[in-house]
């Protein structure tokens, strides 16, 4: 019973994470359904109709290329490290060692987050996946 109460309290207290599109003035955009219902034609068709810019801060290993196991020297953010604007979505990654601490990978990722989003960010999601033989920790974030 206590477990259910704890789960309910956790749900009640949790903040919903959301990727939010911003207009030119940095104000969050409502959903298209709500914009339609409001009858604000400019916001519906222009101000909140921009596809979010996505920056991928790494290049996937070309198929056929291989990275020797245990070698963590793969370039993880070899694209231009330019600061991006509010609302821009950024994909970053860092190699994860097969064994041992992940702190180095996290440190690399947070450095990249600071470089790409100097004004702050929302972390959208985090996952690990192999590219060729190397396991990478990926983060998708949206700059504030």
């Amino acid at each position, binding site marked *: 019973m206590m477990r259910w109460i704890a789960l309910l309290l956790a749900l009640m207290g949790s903040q919903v994470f959301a990727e939010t599109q911003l207009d030119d003035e940095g104000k969050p955009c409502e*959903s298209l*359904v709500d914009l339609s219902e409001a009858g604000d034609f400019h916001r519906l068709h222009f101000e909140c109709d921009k596809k979010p810019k996505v920056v991928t801060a790494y290049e996937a290993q070309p198929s056929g290329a291989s990275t020797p196991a245990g070698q963590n020297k793969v370039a993880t953010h070899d694209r231009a490290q330019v600061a991006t604007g509010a609302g821009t979505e950024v994909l970053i990654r860092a190699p994860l060692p097969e064994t041992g601490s992940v702190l180095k990978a996290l440190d690399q990722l947070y450095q990249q987050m600071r470089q790409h989003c100097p004004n702050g960010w929302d972390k959208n999601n985090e996952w690990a996946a192999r590219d060729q033989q190397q396991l990478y920790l990926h983060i998708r974030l949206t700059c504030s």
Partner: protein
Amino acid sequence: MKTPMNKMLPFAIAAVLPVAAHAEGPIDGTVYGKVNVTVESQDEGDGNVMALESNASRLGFKGKTKINDSLSAIYQLEYEVAADDGDAVFKQRNIYVGLAGDFGAVIAGKHDTPTKLLQNKIDLFNDLQGDIKHVITANENRESNMVMYSTPDMGGFFAKGAYIMSEDSEVDNAMSLSAGWQNDVIYAGLAYDDAVRAEDSNVLRGVVQANVGDFQIGALYETDDTNGATNDGWMLSGQYKMGSWAFKAQAGQSDIKKDGGETFSLGADYKLAKNTKVFGFYTDKSADDNAIEGSYLGLGMEHKF
């Protein structure tokens, strides 16, 4: 099996949306919509029933084509869908084509009147049993044969004007106007309808809404002079947001729909994600001589896409 053309139309539009067309500028089309359903315990004076309701679930297509640097063609085709029983498949909602630029936007088609649009989100139980259209007002109208002009945002000031053609030489054309002002805290406006609800009808609506921190309060007042009878109605609403929760309350009185109309609603929304929420509500409504009578307890879910 014959398939009515109106049922196939949205699919046909969806099928061609990604296709390039002969136009000067880039084509931009988007499919959007929402599904909102509730399980309700309803008591309308003749016993309790359980019901599944679809609350203005809809599917829409909208887009624009740039004609030159200062002018774009815009369009929207929005249809209500009945998620509960499949009746009234693809009932028309807002449907128009128009031009937009720095001057504002001009559209032609079927659309909510400026008076309805002015209500904005003051009705916190919009499309549910507590919707103001059930008790408070008869002027939440979507009209056919409309040409509407909408100003661009001018330092917070906005205005809309619609001319509604009766397409009948014996019936006067109608007009709906609204104007208002808003900033991050205050939203306020006035609207006027002439011959929209009926040929002999004048309606004046005033709204105000304030957003202070996690609190939102709103008020609507309306006076309706239709066929020689003048009636008025009012409604107050309040909402408090706490994390993913929103707690809502609304109450009002009106003689516009029926004499002695009264309604109140209480509810809570819980956001599961940006576009998904679950919610619960209780609504009570009544009028003199039981012309309106009902109490409703509902649990529902809404997903926008």
